[in-house]
């Protein structure tokens, strides 16, 4: 389940700016270039973003190794909403100063702003490990990243110690509730939902409860709560994605398609919607379209085995047997219990006339599926 923060967001963390040329560390720029930098900073402070960008670039043309100027340029680019360019500048800065926590933090923020939560989380984690004082600033952002990446256990570990102080804060409660529910801690999640609802109607609480009900296959209740959440806040992140999942489970793929598309209009990187739109496109054998959605989903969760499996299936279906084979071999090396991947790899091997390999993968897949079948049955009607 994804969870971008609604209403009450984590306290915004500002990009860290090195505003004074005097903080330029050991570097001693020439007087003329120093003036250029001062000019850039002045423009930056005045909010003249385009001029500031130009001025920083002029300075960097003279002093290309200035980490601080590079960082400031990234910051002003980010402020102008030009995140990709900002990311490029921060990355150049980090080449010169790989353990610069401020740069790492800024880069993390830029990634966060572009929805690249895996990259953001990695930079936040590194920044905090280098400068523990950043921890308080990044905790909530990191938790958002973890929730979006499906790393619910990590999010719970991060947020649980804060519950005593922050319980009652709408943003925190939603974030924590999402993590708990994602982690399968239903009772604790329900307690957080009750806490939110005790303060009155809340779209976030209905979304969380709907999510819980969906995972318990109580589809009627889930539908009612999810529709209530959307009615209260039509732009609530993740609500349409959950409703789409519900509709899919009820066999209504037409409406699910529309609902996922709605979610993606709000957030083009929303994982579940991209994944399911990809699956639906693949079902229609629109393989190019499916590939686009899956690749988008992989941007959000770069190593997600489910998405990589789907992409391998697209390769198999489009006759790219070698590509499918390579992807599946890596996948089963990483996830040896992925029964479906073994089954598909068996088919790929057979198509490649590698019968012995096919037989081996088939046996593995069968063993895994038998083991799964031996688990106690669920309690839901078919």
């Amino acid at each position: 389940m994804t969870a971008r923060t609604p209403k009450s967001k984590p306290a915004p963390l500002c990009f860290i700016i090195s505003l004074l040329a005097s903080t330029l560390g050991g570097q001693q720029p020439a007087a003329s270039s120093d003036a250029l930098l001062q000019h850039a900073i002045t423009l930056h402070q005045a909010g003249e973003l385009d001029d500031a960008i130009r001025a920083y670039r002029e300075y960097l043309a003279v002093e290309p190794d200035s980490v601080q100027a590079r960082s400031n340029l990234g910051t002003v680019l980010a402020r102008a909403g030009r995140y990709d360019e900002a990311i490029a500048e921060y990355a150049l800065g980090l080449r010169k100063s790989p353990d610069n926590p401020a740069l790492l933090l800024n880069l993390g923020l830029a990634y966060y702003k572009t929805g690249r939560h895996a990259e953001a989380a990695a930079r936040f984690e590194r920044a905090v490990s280098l400068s523990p004082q950043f921890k308080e600033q990044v905790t909530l952002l990191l938790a958002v990243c973890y929730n979006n990446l499906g790393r619910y256990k990590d999010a719970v570990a991060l947020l649980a110690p804060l519950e005593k102080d922050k319980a009652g804060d709408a943003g925190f409660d939603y974030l924590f509730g999402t993590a708990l529910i994602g982690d399968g801690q239903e009772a604790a999640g329900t307690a957080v939902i009750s806490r939110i609802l005790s303060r009155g109607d809340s779209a976030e609480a209905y979304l969380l409860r709907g999510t819980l009900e969906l995972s318990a296959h109580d589809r009627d209740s889930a539908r009612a709560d999810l529709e209530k959440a959307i009615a209260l806040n039509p732009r609530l992140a993740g609500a349409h994605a959950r409703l789409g999942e519900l509709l899919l489970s009820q066999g209504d793929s037409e409406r699910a398609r529309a609902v996922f598309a709605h979610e993606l209009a709000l957030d083009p990187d929303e994982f579940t919607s991209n994944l399911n739109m990809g699956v639906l496109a693949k079902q229609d054998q629109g393989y190019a379209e499916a590939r686009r959605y899956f690749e988008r989903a992989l941007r959000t969760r770069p190593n997600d085995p489910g998405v990589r499996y789907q992409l391998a299936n697209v390769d198999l279906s489009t006759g790219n047997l070698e590509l499918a084979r390579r992807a599946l071999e890596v996948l089963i090396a990483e996830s040896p219990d992925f029964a479906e991947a073994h089954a598909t790899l068996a088919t790929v091997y057979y198509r490649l006339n590698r019968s012995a390999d096919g037989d081996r993968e088939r046996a593995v897949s069968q063993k895994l599926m038998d083991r799964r079948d031996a688990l106690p049955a669920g309690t839901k009607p078919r």
Partner: protein
Amino acid sequence: MRRWWAVAALCVAGAALWVAAAGAQPEPRRPHFTDIAPKSDFAYRTDNNFTGRKYFPQTMCGGVAAFDFDNDGRMDLFFTNGAKLPEMEKTDARFYNCLLRNRGDGTFEDVTARAGLLGKKLGFSFGVAAGDYDNDGYQDLFICNAGPNTLYHNNGDGTFTDVTERSGIGTKPKDIVSVAAAWFDYDNDGKLDLIVSNYTVWTPQIDKICAVNGQEYYCHPKVYPSVAHRLYHNLGNGRFEDVTDSSGIGKELGKGMGIAIADFNGDGYMDVFVANDTVRNFLFINQKNGTFKESGYEWGVAYDENGNAHSSMGADAKDYDNDGFPDLFYNNLKGQIWGLFRNMGGKYMSYVSGLSHVSRLSEHSSGWSNGFVDYNNDGWKDLYSSNGDIDNMGEISRQPDTMFENVNGKEFRDVSAQLGPDFNHAGFQRGSAFVDLNNDGFPDLVVTSLAEKPRILMNSADNGNHWLLVNTIGRRSNRDGIGAVLKLTTASGRTLYNHVTTSGGFMSSSDKRVHFGLGTEKAIDSLEIRWPSGIVQILKKVKADQILTVTEPGR
């Protein structure tokens, strides 16, 4: 062709007319179906004895066979029925099986008792397969039961004799539930063998109870064990040998449902597809030495495109795109995607549910018996499915059947709504058979539905298309000619393919005569029959719109 038409229209009447002509797609005239069952006096209703408690076998009840038991040229009907639960006995007449003799005037006579087919001792019955196992010219019946299975020999005088015991075909492990069966000659020795699809081990005593919020539902199949299907080799003289293990069929454990028989790789030997419920599907490729190799993975039909096993139900194998290789169609439950697979030159199957639109068309239906049938005689086999939810808990548990019309062998469109109110009856449909009951060359449908009288749906046969029905009589091959592959070439050069089989769908057995729709063509240039014996017979200049009986030549 259409482009040429459009250009001509432009020349005559200008751009406006061109637009109209190019945009206009005249809908073909479609036959519809009318239920004639109410005209006949018979008591049979599909009775699964649902009284509140949900026993495992109740979801599967009402097998149907279409066959001409008295060889009067008119196809008759046989239905299987349930039993009192938990006693598992046909305690009274409402559970008896039923044989209806086709009077030829649109009505049927219940001759079950006279024929000796009431099946009082059979317990809960499921599927039925018709085939002339002893080559005496009369089709016999095999019935799948929760208890021992039953083989009825057709005595040729309107009566049947239970020969299970002496035939040796009744052997199966204790408490195995058999749901479907198919006759075919896997070793081409001229005698029909039998494959039986088994579901699980079950008795009322070990029936599981599943409930949510105090409401009972039919348990997920996972709570019951998978079992091997069984193969019986016909030894002649009315005897069979259980070759399940020696043939390799017994190596795989599944939850068997429908069976489709066809020569998928074109090697002259019949192969077997078994649809499994929540377990991967099996494709047993005939190794031509009395053994089979399960090749579902190689052929790409074990799972769907996502590597998932679904609740596969009915199955059929016919050539829907007329390329000479039998394709595969299985259905499953609502929210899953029915599987349509195109045979790629006898080497593997390509999943085409999406390209053909079957995925979108099927997602709202829970299908049971199914099949390829050219209901409108346009030469393209359409997809039929009898539908109804597994349980009675949802809002749309009762469902109408569906007919997806084949558009030039590439894609399908749902024309169900246009096939008349009787076709669109919503129910818990289960078994179904394709049969030409009035010999007018248009396939009729017979469909069972839980707790209801079956529907006998007559095709209105009013679109003017032409046809050919071929009744094969084997001499060196099995007498039914099951397994014979037919290639028909029309005068215009169009080639159509089909093969002789009575199996298909779920729990059901269809008219053995091979049906060809010819569209507007009246002339057949040639009809080639490749018999299971290997003999190839070619008939030239065959007249359309007839039932043609073809006897296999001697070598």
